[in-house]
């Protein structure tokens, strides 16, 4: 295709876009609604993932030792746990730290503080707080502690069971949310595809006579197709740009609510958008341009047979 043809195709695309402004507005509105639905889904997924990560970070396995357990014995258990590849960190809380924490926690309860004063010795044992990379690995830690007799003798037991129940529940919820998210994304994707394809088919249908006239005055298929494809690209780019602005606005206004929901975490929708701008908007733009062009080419095919 020569430069002259290309420049004419660009000129005709722009002319068609602006001279049929209402059809352009309707098509762009459909594209914006579709893309914004997809962006909203991306936002919801991001917030969900952050919420799950947040809850997961709060989950740990606390190993309470008997007061008789020595420093060396506790260090041996800590070393063994730290050597496991799926363990992120093991924090040692000494019995004196535990007592100080208890006193701090109940500083407003004179009865408890008096009772602690009555005791000659610190009644609390040392604690190891274990965090793993994945929540699925907590059960492995628990299993190892249970299956190793020399560890079981030192541990003042039973705090694992409650955690394992929470971890199990959390894993189930997390995997279900992921599955539902994927299901909704695929469902929305298919609906979007149908809506966009049909909108473009209707737009081309309204111009079927025009296509016939162009062919009768000697225009090649490429020359007829060009401006329509150009128009489709303009619809897609304008729709993507409006969605981009809209998504940024929504993210900016939603962030205070997101922070309210998740608490003081290192996550904002705006930050998430900035980090993933190429994936989210690049992907949406590419997807919508490809869909629009394919839909246009397919819709045009039947009217080009003149």
């Amino acid at each position, binding site marked *: 295709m*020569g430069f*002259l*043809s290309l420049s*004419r195709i660009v000129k005709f695309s722009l*002319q*068609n876009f602006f*001279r*049929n402004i209402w059809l352009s507005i309707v098509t762009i509105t459909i594209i914006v609604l579709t893309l914004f639905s997809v962006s909203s889904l991306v936002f919801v997924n991001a917030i969900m993932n952050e919420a799950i990560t947040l809850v997961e970070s709060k989950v740990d396995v606390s190993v309470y030792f008997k007061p008789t357990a020595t420093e060396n014995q506790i260090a041996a258990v800590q070393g063994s746990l730290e050597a496991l590849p799926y363990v992120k960190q093991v924090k040692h809380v000494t019995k004196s730290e535990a007592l100080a924490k208890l006193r701090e926690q109940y500083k407003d309860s004179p009865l408890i503080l008096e009772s602690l004063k009555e005791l000659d010795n610190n009644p609390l044992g040392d604690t190891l707080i274990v965090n793993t990379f994945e929540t699925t690995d907590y059960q492995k830690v628990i299993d190892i502690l249970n299956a190793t007799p020399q560890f079981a003798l030192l541990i003042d037991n039973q705090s694992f069971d409650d955690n394992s129940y929470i971890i199990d529940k959390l894993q189930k919820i997390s995997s279900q949310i992921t599955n539902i998210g994927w299901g909704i994304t695929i469902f929305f994707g298919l609906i979007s595809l149908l809506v966009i394809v049909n909108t473009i088919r209707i737009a081309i249908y309204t111009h079927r*006579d*025009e296509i*016939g*006239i*162009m*062919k*009768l*005055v*000697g*225009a*090649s*298929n490429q*020359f007829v197709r060009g401006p329509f494809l150009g128009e489709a690209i303009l619809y897609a780019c304008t729709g993507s740009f409006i969605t981009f602005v809209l998504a940024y606005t929504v993210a900016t206004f939603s962030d205070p609510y997101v922070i309210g929901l998740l608490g003081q975490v290192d996550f904002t929708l705006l930050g998430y958008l900035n980090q993933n701008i190429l994936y989210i908007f690049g992907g949406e733009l590419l997807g919508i341009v490809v869909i629009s062009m394919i839909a246009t080419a397919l819709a045009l095919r039947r009217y080009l047979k*003149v």
Partner: protein
Amino acid sequence: MVEFKNVSKIYPGQQTALKNVTLMIEPGEFVSIVGQSGTGKTTLVKLILAEERPSKGRIVIGGWDITDIKQREIPTLRKQIGVVFQDFKLLPRKTLFENVAFALEVGGETWDKIQEIVPQVLRIVGLESKMGRFPNQVSGGEQQRAVVARSLAHRPKILVADEPTGNLDSINSRDIIELLKKINDFGTTVLLVTHNREVVNDLHRRVITMEDGVVISDKQRGKYLL
């Protein structure tokens, strides 16, 4: 210039539009093809424009046998033929200037040449002052004159006018026929398909009469027989 050799056109469902039509139109001729509705006149036009393919026989346009013309060759053929239709067929989203220019743009004409030719042809058809208007902003007669201007723009060897006066009043019809005569005087072969008795009888040119897909009469300086 236009040659039909034993051409038949049978549409699906065994509907015969043309039966063994043989005719020869010489360069520079002005030929009227007449007949009642459904006699195959429009099929004849469609075959010339390669909108349809013949079921039998051969068609030669300007020495080019287009019987088995390839899809990609059709634009080249159409650039050599000017076409005027009953329903005008102007591009609604383009001004009259742009409609005429479009016929040149598809042929790859430069912008400078377009700026030179388009006002010229619009002046010939008397629309120079309305070139910036859209088709829906001018009358039917003016639309048809714009179509004639478009068909002239790329200086075609043949001009095919399919019922060009069908949607026009008698004054506008006469204007269009005068334009076609003027174009023919410049040397362009004109093929006028019509069932307007008055127009044909006033022309005093060659008349081919069709009935049921068959040529029943072909006379130089003929009259409308039916």
